């Protein structure tokens, strides 16, 4: 017993030695800056006007919460913050929901036998692999009212009578365009993760169900979904967090417009901090964004029981 303990101690020491370089890098470029960002959020610091910083305590945060309950003209940035938070939450929930449902559908289809299946499976990786900047530019061209194929198609099919500037005319069309462009890029990723989950379900379960006379629907709800739950939750937690901090898609597709209707939190934060030079307020917003992501992760892991450790590393093909 004692010997084992000392061996563990020895391996712990050696392990820390191996971990050291990575831990140093992570502390230096992640933890330290996060701490500094929090510190900076306690100041008013408008870099465009003066280099002096004024310590204001938690007032950036109280301003944010005041902005939620009593929108004040003088604190218009907090109103924009809550607008962005609302847009981001809505975008995250809708986009991830669509991606999951369609992704699951595609996974179920690819899981069946057909000619060229390997090719289709490979092809699903392509939208995932290309830069979001490129895919967003692609969708910007397709949504355009000048030379855009979606307008052309919608008019030919009789959905619209006049060409519509989807990305610029109304917040609703811009928002849904952003959802579409994001879904196109991430559905394949979802489908692949779920396909991997589907392939771990033992076929005997379905055979047994068939013998018992269970319908296809019944099999789906009683076997497929429960067995898929761990992979589904892991895919969901990563997709939700990624969608929540999305920046590229809004920046390129709409620039946050029209009327800030597609201004995701990361983009709002970028504009406030980098373009307007408000490092104090911007830092407070960044910390809020950080807290939101931690809450989402907490919700998935503690409430829904997602286990990011569990489904890892079972297949090495």
């Amino acid at each position, binding site marked *: 017993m004692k010997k084992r303990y000392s061996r563990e101690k020895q391996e712990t020491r050696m392990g820390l030695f191996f971990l050291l370089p990575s831990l140093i*890098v992570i502390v230096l470029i992640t933890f330290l800056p996060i701490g500094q960002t929090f510190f900076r959020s306690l100041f008013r610091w408008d870099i465009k006007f003066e280099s002096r910083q004024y310590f204001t305590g938690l007032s950036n945060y109280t301003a944010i919460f005041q902005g939620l309950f009593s929108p004040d003209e003088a604190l218009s940035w907090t109103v924009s913050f809550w607008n962005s938070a609302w847009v981001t939450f809505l975008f995250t929930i809708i986009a991830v929901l669509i991606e999951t449902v369609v992704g699951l559908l595609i996974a179920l289809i690819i899981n069946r036998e057909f000619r060229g299946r390997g090719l289709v499976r490979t092809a699903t990786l392509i939208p995932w692999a290309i830069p979001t900047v490129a895919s967003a530019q692609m969708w910007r061209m397709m949504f355009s009212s000048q030379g855009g194929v979606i307008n052309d198609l919608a008019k030919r099919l009789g959905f619209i009578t006049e060409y519509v500037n989807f990305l610029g005319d109304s917040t609703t069309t811009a928002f849904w365009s952003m959802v579409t462009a994001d879904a196109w890029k991430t559905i394949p990723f979802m489908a692949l993760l779920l396909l991997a989950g589907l392939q771990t379900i033992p076929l005997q379960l379905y055979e047994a169900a068939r013998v018992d006379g269970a319908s296809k629907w019944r099999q789906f709800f009683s076997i497929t979904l429960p067995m898929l739950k761990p992979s589904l939750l892991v895919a969901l937690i990563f997709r939700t967090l990624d969608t929540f901090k999305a920046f590229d898609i809004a920046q390129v597709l709409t620039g946050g417009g029209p009327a800030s209707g597609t201004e995701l939190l990361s983009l709002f934060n970028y504009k406030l901090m980098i373009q307007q030079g408000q490092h104090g307020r911007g830092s407070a917003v960044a910390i809020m964004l950080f807290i939101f992501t931690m809450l989402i992760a907490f919700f998935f892991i503690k409430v829904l029981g997602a286990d990011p450790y569990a489904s890892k590393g079972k297949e090495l093909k």
Partner: protein
Amino acid sequence: MRKRWIPRLLLTLAVLVIIVFMFFPFYWLFIMSLKGDLDLYKMPPDWIAKNPRWDNYKTIFTDHNLGQNLQNSFIIAFSTTLISVLIGSWAAYALAKFRMRFKSLILGVILAVSMFPGIVVVSPLYMQFSDLKIINTYWALILPYLTFSLPMTIWILQSFFKQIPDALTEAAVIDGAGPMRALFQIIFPLAAPGIFTAFILTFIGAWNELLFASIFITDYRKFTVPRALTLFSGQYTSSWQLIAAASVVITLPLIVMVLLLQKWIVAGLTAGGVKD
């Protein structure tokens, strides 16, 4: 048995819909890249390129410096990946093979780091990089890219390393090999697919990144490809044929990579906490 063709037909149709949904945007991008100024904004648009303007592809290299952007992107993504795999593999080795205290805590922290929103580190890093005078150098992107690539690499590698039987490394240690030699002589060769996977996924992540690339690089000669591509947007008169041509050029290598390496990519996606 007679009705079996109906589900077959439905399946074929479904597959066709998936293929069109995934590939039509690429087709459109390609068509746009061959259009001339006058055809770009025409309504209804041409669905085929009537007078393909291949010189658009020349313009993006001669007038728009895409070659330089590609080179910047490549150096930055490659260096990020190399550093991540080098120091990440030590960490992964310790986490996968050593009996250690606090192991699950460390793993949890590493996973949590990979979930942080990038913008939360931007402001302090910018100040520090300015002090160090590395804004507008490759380091200004390689260092922040490690925030996401290092946790991702460690996560993928430790899941691959775990699958190598302990007996093999222990035998090496009994034979007198130090842990460093065990790592290089036993683990690395056996986990080569895992290292390759981590390499590809980290590379793609760094190649596609935009937020840091918009902040830490302000000199257009040092722009990475995604940053260069945004330059065209947000303006009223976009040169769409050039954006399209540039998008095709930067997308093609990724498509080839995916087609050749899909086996490893899928293994990595299902092994690690991987983000897009």
